[in-house]
């Protein structure tokens, strides 16, 4: 088989590329955030099934998000975004109320200002307890009428490991603990992982993390064991509104395209897919999303690229540097010998 796109670019069959012969179709998630009600059933169902430990009982002040981000102790994470703008044709009912300026941004800033002083820059939200203290923002003037806010929307989105076609975490793993399954998903084998931590930095989405007490890296397995038993992943099964849909990736991509068209027709032009494109920097995600704003608003990178894409370049330059070193080391003696 051609290994042309083993490291980057569109790859039709990642499981076959990883040596699985006669494998089932590629399975994945399509998370339609336009119907997410932010209940967090996905987070709990995931933890119940996978025995993921509790990871910090802290009020984060990020709307109703007290999980913070994906991590070793949170394999699903529901983001909550409050914004002063309308959602499609939704009427938030604020017009003509005696409102002042929006404070969504200010509240967000309260949190963002506290994050740099938190351990690991807030990158450990959802991994260990984080105390944000009692920061504050300047009090707004009590405005009314003209400068008052009239628009509002509340976005919710359940984030998860993307199970990339080209997975940074998998590529860098030195033990083979991370591997691609027959379902084309990316899974950490807990009996193998020795906690080198390389995958943590290899992931362009900031998904995988190491558990401090346990020492190993953990992330969503797309319920590998359940898939083996022809069961749906726990989060998708629990999701009350079917915001999390599970199935063969090809089917999901078709369904997602229809859904976007439907939303565009219904006056929600901001609906867009994220991670569905096999031509993107990671070869397309096994778990992709329908978003209602730019990805970075949900904490997602706008244009992630698997570091492996540049692997050849890196080795080439490393080779050059090595050659230079050898040359130099030889030269210093040659000169001396003269």
């Amino acid at each position, binding site marked *: 088989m051609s290994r042309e796109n083993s490291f980057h670019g569109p790859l039709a069959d990642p499981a076959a590329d990883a040596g699985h012969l006669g494998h089932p179709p590629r399975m994945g998630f399509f998370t339609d955030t336009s119907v997410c*009600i932010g209940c967090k059933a996905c987070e709990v169902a995931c933890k119940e099934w996978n025995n993921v430990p509790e990871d910090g009982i802290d009020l984060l002040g990020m709307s109703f998000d007290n*999980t913070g981000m994906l991590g070793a102790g949170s394999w699903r994470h529901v983001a909550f975004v409050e914004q002063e703008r309308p959602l499609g044709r939704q009427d938030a009912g604020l017009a003509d109320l005696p409102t002042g300026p*929006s*404070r*969504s941004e200010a509240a967000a800033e309260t949190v963002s200002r506290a994050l740099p002083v938190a351990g690991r820059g807030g990158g450990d939200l959802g991994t260990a307890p984080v105390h944000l203290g009692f920061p504050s923002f300047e009090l*707004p*003037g009590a405005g009314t009428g003209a400068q008052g806010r009239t628009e*509002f929307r509340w976005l919710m989105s359940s984030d998860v490991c993307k199970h990339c076609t080209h997975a940074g975490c998998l590529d860098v793993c030195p033990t083979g603990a991370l591997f691609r399954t027959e379902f084309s998903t990316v899974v950490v084998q807990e009996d193998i992982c020795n906690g080198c931590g390389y995958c943590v930095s290899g992931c362009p989405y900031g998904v995988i993390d190491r558990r401090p007490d346990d020492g190993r890296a953990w992330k969503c397995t797309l319920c590998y064991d359940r898939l083996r038993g022809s069961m749906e992943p726990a989060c998708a099964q629990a999701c*009350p509104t079917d915001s999390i849909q599970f199935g063969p990736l090809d089917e999901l991509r078709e369904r997602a395209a229809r859904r976007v068209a439907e939303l565009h027709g219904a006056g929600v032009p901001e609906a867009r897919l994220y991670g569905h494109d096999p031509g993107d920097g990671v070869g397309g995600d096994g778990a992709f999303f329908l978003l209602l704003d730019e990805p970075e608003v949900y904490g997602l990178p706008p244009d992630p690229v698997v570091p492996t894409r540049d692997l050849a370049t890196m080795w080439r330059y490393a080779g050059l540097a090595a050659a230079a070193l050898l040359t130099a080391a030889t030269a210093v003696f040659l000169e001396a010998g003269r």
Partner: protein
Amino acid sequence: MGSNMAEAHPVGFQWVMEAKARGARVVHIDPRFTRTSALADQHVTLRAGTDIAFLGGVINHILTNDLSFREYVQAYTNASCLVGERFEDTEDLDGLFSGYDPRTASYDASSWAYESVPVEERPGGRAKEQAAPYQHGSGGPPMEGGAQGIARDLSLEHPRCVYQVLKRHFSRYTPEMVERICGVPQDLFLDVCRAWTANSGRERTAALVYSVGWTQHTVGAQYIRAGSIIQLLLGNVGRPGGGVFALRGHASIQGSTDIPTLFNLLPGYLPMPDVTHESLAAYLDGVRRPGQKGFWGNADAYTISLLKEYWGENATEENDYCFDYMPRIDGDHGTYRTAMDMVDGKVFGYFLLGQNPAVGSAHGRLQRLGMANLDWLVVRDLTMIESATFWKDAPETETGEIVAQQCRTEVFFFPAASHVEKSGTFTQTQRMLQWRDQAVEPVGDQRSELWFFHQLGLRLRRRLAGSTDERDRPLLDLAWDYASEDGEPSAADVLRHINGIDLRTGRTVGGYTELKADGSTACGCWIYSGVYADEVNQARRRKSRFDTGPYDAEWGWTWPMNRRVLYNRASADPQGRPWSERKALVWWDAERGEWTGHDTPDFERTKPPDHVPPAGSSGPAALRGDDAFIMMSDGKGWLFAPAGLADGPLPTHYEPHESPVRNLLYGQQASPVRKVYGRPDNPSNPAPPEAHGEVFPYVFTAARLTEHHTAGGMSRQLPYLAELQPELFVEVSPELAAERGLTHLGRAHVITSRTAVEARVVVTDRMAPLHIDGRVVHQVWMPYHWGQVGLTTGDVVNDLIGVVADPNVFIQESKVLTCDIRPGGRPRGSDLVDYVEDYRRRAGITPWTGVRIVTAGGHDGPGHTEGDPWEGPS
């Protein structure tokens, strides 16, 4: 409206999302923008406690613009019935209806009756003391002669016909008035009116969903009445996609109302006997009257079958089926009354069964002080809860009001079995019973309630065996011999007895129509009759949705008689044809001579649509072929309630007990019959026309979060849930934050005349201030799940709330009160007591505050205090 469905019932909300995906318009009307609002097409912010003004506005819009479903209204509602001449409306009496007695703060409802129906005058005091509508079960009050002779004007033009009475009553509820009272801009309000009416009629239906956002008010029952009136006017009752949905909050709270652990009810909404019922005949006469229509006409069969189940062979016709064994009620014996009686030393022992009043009941402080004054307390729960540990860690231990060494209450904690450790049925919110099989044995001392109470009964009877005391007879004669499985009574056998047994054959009856008034059947709950038909546990059925039709008739069992949509006869027109093919549900099949359709018809199967009962018939036989509301004493849906409600035949906007504004519609400020308890330990914040309301300038409302469950015993102790909502917080608008100097994530405390509680501040655009009659009114919201035990702990929000109740059902007004909010933590220890006392002093609060109920017509009515609370102004 009054429901945060996406958060409180997330899995049920999938059907709303499904409907939305098919093009349904979703409107959410709520004081704050919630996760439900986030998914709705339209959100309407309204001031908490003003829903009747809003709904009245909708009714007025429908009537003024003639938008009702005329044929439906004429055929199936009492719109055409004439109201008696003695009736006077709130329009005439400044917010009161005729029959009001300011001394007892109650109504004599006799003047509300239909023109031609004989009524006896009944002082309202008794009804008010007994949670009246429950007394009348699900079918409304008895009405003599309901079967015939009600004067009607089918043209709906007569000035005293219900339609015109309604029109006049709601004429004040204009869009302008809605805006001034509710704070909802007129355009927005009219949008909702248009959406509601445009989606109702032959081809379309609209559903109305409410939860405790509606019930926990002094006028809660009338909120629901107001919603029902709209749904009746628009033809949205008994039809697919229509209805008024009460979303209930607990696994079997519907079941615990059907098979009540409630003081005023017996199973199947039969009333608890009261002191006027010296005999079974007198009791039955209070339930149904000669000549009345509908299935309550058979109340004798239901009651006697229940008595046969209770006392078995000992219940005979000669001894009135042991009716005399029944304890009698003579007033309010509701849970709040009982808590006050505990404080007053009148109650000695208390059982708490999976319930945590120290956190979950309004005025938690009163609850805890009551519990601290008992002889003994039995707590049965899965985990250690605040109500079991109050003697050592209640907030009152911090203030010194409860000291363990001085608290005499003896506490027994019995660990309970969980839902997988016992078998039995839950009744869910749409009346469906679902059986659970036992999965595992409980460990240690963990036992089910079934075991506990069966054991308790056995041991009590053993102890009293041989007693000659007359008062022990009911216990000794009790039928208490249920089949047992390994020492545990068989839940299936109990369910069999609930279903009912034909004592001649020993087999289960097939349904309540088979119950007899001659003592030949025993039935524990007539509305559940049929759940064990053919000796099969119908609630245990699990036929997959993939294998059945759209109404999934073989999954569980729905009372009554496995009907999914109540009153579904109304889904067909008077001639028995579906109103439209699109909305067909049940129809008359003339060829086969029976009702048929997708659902089990809620009608006598072979009674043709044009049936006219012979003169003199009563009960079910008196129902016409187009009397769709088969439980009602006149067969009609009630727009106007000629009897049965303690607070008026029509919903009327009254301000909440605690409100920052004067009632703009009437001189009567708040419900004139609300149940108040004027006691020093139950103070109220002042409301207009009383002075000093400005001390508590903000509207307060509380609710639950998806991530927690009620008082937290089943969620704050679980790491996976505790981490999702880890701390008590209070939500305020940016405007209120500015006004009070509150900062996001900072600390603040909320104060009422009861206490102050501390929480983290969440400043959010989801909260918005309102224009109320020219001034800006702010609302404050808190979740209420916290207490001092568990993985996440916090102040008890229910401590902020005083006890004042709806006179119909005695449910407390906990969805709206007034408060103040200040930055920083609350005072600790005994300083807290002084701090709150200072607030009370500044607001001039005494036990008389808030209990001078009558304010209509400029009267200064009497204060309704308990006895002489203390020396003070009178």
